[in-house]
């Protein structure tokens, strides 16, 4: 099992966002989580990638505790994350950002890898342009490139298709399906029916804090 969540509960003050959420993710799973705005999708993904801690419940990723050091370093090396925010340095160029994160990920041949992912996402021509000068769509692509640098075993993405054009959605969808063919796991949230249908083999919905399999 790549990721196993048992009875995850998360509340913000009196607002119970997640209630007894359990989920197992294995290699080759591509899970799409849908739900209304504010239903707790982003919170759940943040818990899965270790940015948030649940109030109650247990989570293990690759059989390890994501909140304990040095165990979580093993997890982080094998996980890719794309959240709502692009999490990139606006003053740095696309290349500088990607090289920086490649070094932190410990990728040995990081320069060819950066070229590979930027080619795949069709942003090679923007490599030497600062992030703040890029359009929202291209920033999103650069951020997606960052999450693919380590060819992650689990790719966690929060509405990857939001605010991007149809051609780019197609590129993103191809990356998801290619990953599935190589038995890599994807977990993502989406409001786009077509995209989620194409990219997922398991569909779930968050409703009233509970995760339901569709």
């Amino acid at each position, binding site marked *: 099992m790549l990721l196993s969540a048992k009875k995850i509960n998360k509340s913000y003050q009196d607002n119970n966002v997640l209630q007894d959420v359990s989920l197992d993710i294995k290699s080759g799973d591509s899970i799409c989580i849908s739900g209304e705005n504010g239903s707790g999708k982003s919170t759940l993904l943040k818990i899965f990638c270790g940015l948030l801690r649940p109030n109650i419940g247990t989570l293990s990723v690759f059989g390890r505790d994501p909140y304990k050091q040095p165990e979580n370093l093993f997890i982080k*090396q094998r996980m890719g994350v794309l959240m709502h925010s692009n*999490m*990139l*340095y606006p003053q*740095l160029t696309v290349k*500088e950002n990607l090289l*920086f994160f490649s070094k932190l990920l410990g990728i040995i041949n990081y320069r060819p890898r950066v070229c590979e992912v930027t080619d795949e996402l069709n942003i090679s021509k923007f490599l030497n342009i600062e992030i703040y000068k890029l359009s929202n769509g291209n920033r999103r692509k650069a951020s997606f490139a960052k999450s693919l640098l380590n060819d992650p075993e689990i790719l966690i993405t929060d509405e990857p298709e939001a605010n991007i054009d149809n051609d780019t959605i197609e590129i993103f969808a191809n990356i998801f399906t290619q990953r599935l063919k190589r038995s890599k796991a994807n977990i993502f949230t989406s409001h786009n029916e077509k995209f989620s249908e194409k990219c997922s083999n398991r569909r779930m919905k968050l409703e009233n804090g509970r995760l339901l399999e569709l």
Partner: protein
Amino acid sequence: MKNWIKILLTISSKDLIVELKSKETIVTITLFSLLVVSIFAVTSSNPSNLSAEIGAGIMWAAVVFSGSIAMSKLFSHEEKNETLNAILLMPVPIELIFFSKILSLFLFLTISECFIIAVFSILFNSNPLSIYILTAIPIFNLGFSCVGTFFGIISSKSRSNEILLTLLLVPIIIPLIMFATELTKAGLLGISSQNFNLWLSLGILFDIIFLVVLTFLFGKIIEQ
């Protein structure tokens, strides 16, 4: 160990590149400090005869307040762009993230202080550069960066982060300010400080205690 140093240098050199492009932190510290020093110089009837005690106080007060403004700016940018979260998602020990931020701030403060000392010596017609100030600068900068990084990250979550950081930071570093002022005073007077060893021990002890305690607490806070 070699890998740790590599990560430390990677994060700090990234901070330096960002700073070279944005010029925000160093420019904030330098300009604000120069403004404070200049105000004292123009309002003093005879700046050349300013007592060493006041001179040293002016210099370090300028560094402390401008430094805290620059730190809150630096960390609020990290918070706004969620770049600290991006680093937290990388396979990097939390302590290394803390050390790298300390190293970056240490460098920014040192560069800014070089300008401040130069302008101070011109405006007040005195030479603060001595073995005392050269000892005070690295010890002060290390302690200031350490406490500043810790509270900077905590206060960046708050809306009134600039005030909060200064309020949290200044009372804690008072022993460090006393240490730096005492040594600068000795440097300005050109005499040997009688309690040099005592002040030096205080400064070093402050750095060691806060570096150890805050490194431990930083890990705990981030984990939570």
